[in-house]
């Protein structure tokens, strides 16, 4: 099997000594059609990988910004089938890696066999399940991998070494490190726990490591780029979408903000 788009991205980034900028967006906010053009704007601004969030009615790991985005998306009828359609439209014009980012229940309801096939056909490159531990989601990994998709799991500052080893064993493409305890959302300061977690994770895996949660500005991106292969930004993007609701400038604002973050991340490696 050829290396996945996700693996190719991180290989290229490592070769060029550049950090990857990973951008999260809640699909369907403000509408599924608009998500396609918002992703295009983030790509133009320099995003290297898109996390396409599947809206779920009870997002226990999310803070207010993504909760509100989820409510807007569901109110406009977003569903997993619709999100797959968004991925297909993005893939028609772009080779940017796409990671499906979802709570488990919509995936279970859709059915994992069917999901793995349909996601691969839509051009999705991997799946991350927010509320599925390796213990519970492990059984889904073979079927997802068999369809040629990566499986990305979360590691947290509260995970002891034994759990970090498990997370690494079940992950492919990269590992997503949660910078601090808490829900998603913007914070004033990047947690010191991130560096320690990166260090511990490095001792158990060679997979690329991306750090997320609470990264909202260029300086944060720079700090993370110093220690990790990838910088994940979520709520800060979603907040721009919320603030420019109904405006034609949504795409241009998103593109400009992405550019700022990318410059920050690159400066971290300079």
């Amino acid at each position: 099997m050829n290396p996945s788009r996700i693996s190719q991205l991180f290989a290229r980034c490592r070769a060029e000594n550049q950090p990857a900028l990973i951008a999260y967006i809640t699909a369907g906010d403000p509408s599924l059609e608009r998500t396609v053009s918002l992703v295009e704007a983030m790509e133009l601004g320099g995003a290297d990988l898109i996390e396409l969030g599947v809206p779920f009615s009870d997002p226990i790991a999310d803070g207010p910004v993504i909760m509100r985005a989820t409510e807007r998306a569901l109110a406009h009828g977003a569903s997993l089938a619709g999100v797959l359609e968004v991925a297909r439209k993005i893939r028609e014009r772009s080779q940017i890696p796409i990671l499906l980012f979802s709570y488990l229940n919509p995936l279970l309801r859709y059915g994992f066999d069917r999901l793995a096939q349909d996601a691969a056909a839509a051009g999705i490159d991997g799946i991350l399940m927010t509320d599925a531990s390796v213990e519970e989601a492990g059984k889904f990994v073979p079927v997802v991998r068999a369809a040629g998709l990566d499986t990305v799991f979360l590691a947290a500052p509260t995970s002891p070494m034994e759990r970090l080893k498990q997370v690494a064993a079940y992950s492919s493409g990269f590992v997503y490190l949660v910078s601090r305890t808490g829900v998603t959302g913007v914070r004033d300061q990047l947690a010191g726990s991130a560096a320690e977690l990166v260090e511990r994770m490095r001792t158990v895996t060679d997979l690329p490591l991306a750090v997320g949660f609470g990264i909202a500005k260029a300086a944060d991106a720079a700090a993370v780029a110093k220690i990790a292969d990838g910088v994940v930004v979520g709520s800060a993007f979603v907040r721009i979408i919320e603030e420019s609701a109904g405006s034609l400038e949504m795409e241009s604002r998103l593109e400009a903000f992405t550019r700022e973050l990318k410059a920050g991340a690159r400066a971290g490696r300079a």
Partner: protein
Amino acid sequence: MITTSQPDSGGHFGPYGGRFVPEVLMNPLEELEQAYYAARRDPTFQAELADLLKDYAGRPTPLYYAKRLSQTLGGAKIYIKREDLLHTGAHKINNALGQILLARRMGKKRIIAETGAGQHGVATATVCALFGMECVIYMGEEDMRRQRLNVFRMRLLGATVTGVTSGSRTLKDAISEAMRDWVTNVGDTHYLLGSALGSHPYPLMVRDFHSCMGAEAREQILAKEGRLPDQVIACVGGGSNAIGIFHAFVPDTAVKLVGVEAGGRSLAPGEHAARFAGGSPGVLQGCFSYVLQNGDGQISLTHSVSAGLDYAMIGPEHAFLADQGRAEYVPCSDADALEAAQTLARTEGLIPALESAHGVAEALRRAPAAKGEIFIVNLSGRGDKDIDIYRENLKELDEPESN
């Protein structure tokens, strides 16, 4: 029939239960599990809990023969397990006392909890006052409106009550908010979950702390009647009072176990909280069990006149008992629950909590055709907290000229 009531090492009852949480919470849940298993084996812990249950909460509670009610119905002999007599007015204090001892043992300084009807919130606020711990209760704004008395009781006990405005503003949304708090403050905070729900070890631990109800009832009925009951009936929201009274009877396969879910206004989607009448297995708030959801896997809104039963998922051990055919689950409408509450009030002088009234209603329905049988109904709470809802729904009793 396999009816093992000990989950596997991952906390599964058959396929149900487990741990479906963000990675941040996995190790805290493992630590909680280890601490709980150690406490369960520790005679000092068990002795302290037993003392508190006896001298502070008021256990054992009586098993009362409802003679007038039974004679009026002309069928089964109905016994009532009087959890309504416990301190704070409902069974919830059993679990709150158990978990606060565990939290203290684990060195936690701060307690958070969700509440629907407010009974678990009051029980939690009570034990926090007793042990001098900081207490934050999450409660949906809709529930704060319909259970105002309990909101005031929690505040009087020194707890902070935080209103939740997301979703349907009821129990489910309160649990999500409590989980968000826990994921953020997991170092010094214990989440004192109030039902036999959520991730392992909660369903097991909450059931164990409530299993005193069934153990007492089993001994009491043997003493009074010289035999086991034919049916044990309890209402089921998340399912803590039901699993607590069922547990001791699970091996007694001749005893029918009957769980009563909220049938609401009708069994149309969004109008009820009867998970076995329209639900299917899924994941919500850390647990795999029967849940009300739509075709896209989004969790459905629910309705019940009773805030404590108004929840989209049923506890995993109930899902297992249902699959095994060991327990049966039936819905009871808002109207039937209100009617049953009046009947119990007028024949026995007992005003039940609206939740418990659902169980009473099912007993009333079954009793006339069950001559010679013995029923035990769990009266899980008293109705004082529900007086405003009774007044709204029984307007004819609230007229100035009525008497």
